[in-house]
């Protein structure tokens, strides 16, 4: 079980002066949703948490150890990230794409074993893309590619899952399936931390919410406390109507 904590973390967004430092504790079993308008720094935050970008100040601790003191390979065994956009410069099949998730677990001289192959195939199956395993990724639809990317993270099988808009391009059925899968992962003592644009998905599936405001303000806490109509209206600059359905709040633009 791994927890990721941030101490007075300020992400580096050019031209932003006053910022509330983030003191987050991303614990096993939690599902976090990050909400905020375009350009507010959601992706930058995810990249910073993954150690791919230096923060402006503050630090990141993985199980109490500063991220910079841990080998890149060890970090990638514990923490993985689904990017918002991907490069497919060279042709590769869905199975080959998922298999690169095993990279952190193999020594340089090791070839992928049958077991690695089985892990990748199980992940493709969980994301309902196993029937596409021999297709070239650049011939798949946006939603199918998105699911292959999530399957790659599942093949990597880290304890902290960072996802940048995982429901992008997905149809309704697969949005729900992916969210269920992420909840299952959290139930297995993994931590899930994702950026979302859909308030209703966040309300239905996340238990912790981080709101990022364009002026650098931020607040976070249990979903119930954060998903308040007035707070969300000022976050997006958009009037909202809300109701409760099946025990979860639902928001529509008013």
């Amino acid at each position, binding site marked *: 079980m791994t927890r990721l904590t941030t101490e007075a973390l300020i992400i580096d967004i050019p031209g932003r002066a006053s910022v509330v430092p983030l003191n987050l504790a991303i614990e096993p079993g939690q599902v976090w949703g990050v909400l905020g308008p375009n350009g507010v720094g959601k992706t930058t935050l995810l990249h910073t948490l993954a150690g791919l970008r230096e923060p402006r100040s503050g630090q990141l601790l993985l199980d109490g150890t500063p991220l910079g003191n841990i080998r*890149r390979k060890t970090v990638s065994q514990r923490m993985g990230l689904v990017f918002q956009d991907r490069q497919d410069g060279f042709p590769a099949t869905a199975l080959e794409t998922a298999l690169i998730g095993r*990279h952190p677990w193999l020594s340089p001289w090791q*070839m992928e074993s049958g077991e690695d192959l089985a892990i990748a195939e199980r992940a493709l199956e969980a994301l309902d893309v196993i029937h596409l395993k021999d297709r070239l990724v650049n011939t798949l639809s946006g939603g199918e590619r998105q699911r292959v990317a999530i399957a790659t993270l599942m093949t990597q099988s880290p304890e902290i899952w960072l996802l940048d808009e995982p429901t992008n391009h997905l149809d309704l059925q697969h949005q729900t399936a992916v969210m269920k899968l992420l909840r299952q992962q959290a139930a297995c003592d993994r931590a899930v931390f994702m950026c979302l644009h859909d308030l209703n998905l966040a309300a239905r599936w996340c238990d912790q919410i981080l709101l990022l405001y364009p002026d650098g303000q931020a607040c976070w806490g249990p979903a119930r406390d954060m998903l308040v109509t007035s707070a969300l209206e000022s976050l997006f600059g958009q009037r909202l109507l809300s109701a409760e359905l099946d025990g979860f709040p639902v928001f529509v633009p008013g």
Partner: protein
Amino acid sequence: MPISSPYKPLLILLLAGFLAALISVSIGSTAIGFEDTLRVITGSGTELQQTLILELRLPRTLSAFATGGLLAVAGALMQVLLRNPLADPYVLGLSGGAAVGALLAMLAGAAGFLVSGSAFAGAMLATLLVFGLAHGSGSWTPSRLLLTGVVVAAGWGAIITLILSMTPASRLPGMLYWLMGDLSHAATPWPGLIILLLVCLMVFPLGRALNVLARGSLQAAALGVSVRPLEWSIYLMASLLTATAVTMAGSVGFVGLVVPHMLRLVLGNDQRLILPACALAGGTLLVLADTLARVVIAPEQLPVGVITALIGVPTFLYLLYRSR
């Protein structure tokens, strides 16, 4: 594919390389039958045949093999580095730098080793120039590196034209032959072969990291690859390979572009398979091209670069046309 065994295609390519070398040492001004060639290789045969094959033809054949292999591996590495299947060491201006070095040495009246050394220095200078300029003050992106390389290559092209226009006519043929790629001046194949073998051995443990890097530098970093040191070492390795090849044979085009591209179409894009396959296929291709260059208008010789370009241009256009 990482799943299937890599040995079968490599064995086939190895066999093809051996056959090409056999054809290459048998054909020439004095044709020697395959049986006699095999006899010479196993240590018998007449003295004349031994001299002809072991001292005259075999070194040239091995030089051709080394040059082709070096260029193809360098091309494959550059393509991964730039995440662009159309990249090639020549596109980045390495051969231009080498050519300017070699031509300046020739203009000064030097020959042999001095020309080779100057070409090597030119290639390494071009490497540092492109890398330094692409680095600049900002971040180092593949598109920026590619653009810097293309522009620097155009600059080298202008300098080459300038040198040629200032050269007395009597020295021009040697220069032109060098520019078109020519194996008749390759002194010894061994440095090239050894470097090729070493790089292939070094690249194998890096292969999977290169596969991950082909998916983009951020994705690679997220999967635990130390991206910047890896990119540096690929670039330096590819530059060293190119410089060695250019020093041996002058500027031989299209091998670095066409060979990796063709192999990827057949074998997929696992670098652990593609890189050794490039070494074998590139070597084989250049051995065959050099054999053609020697026999088409015998006893005159064609520059081998003409043959590779004549084969390479239509092949490449065909592949490009077919791929969308």
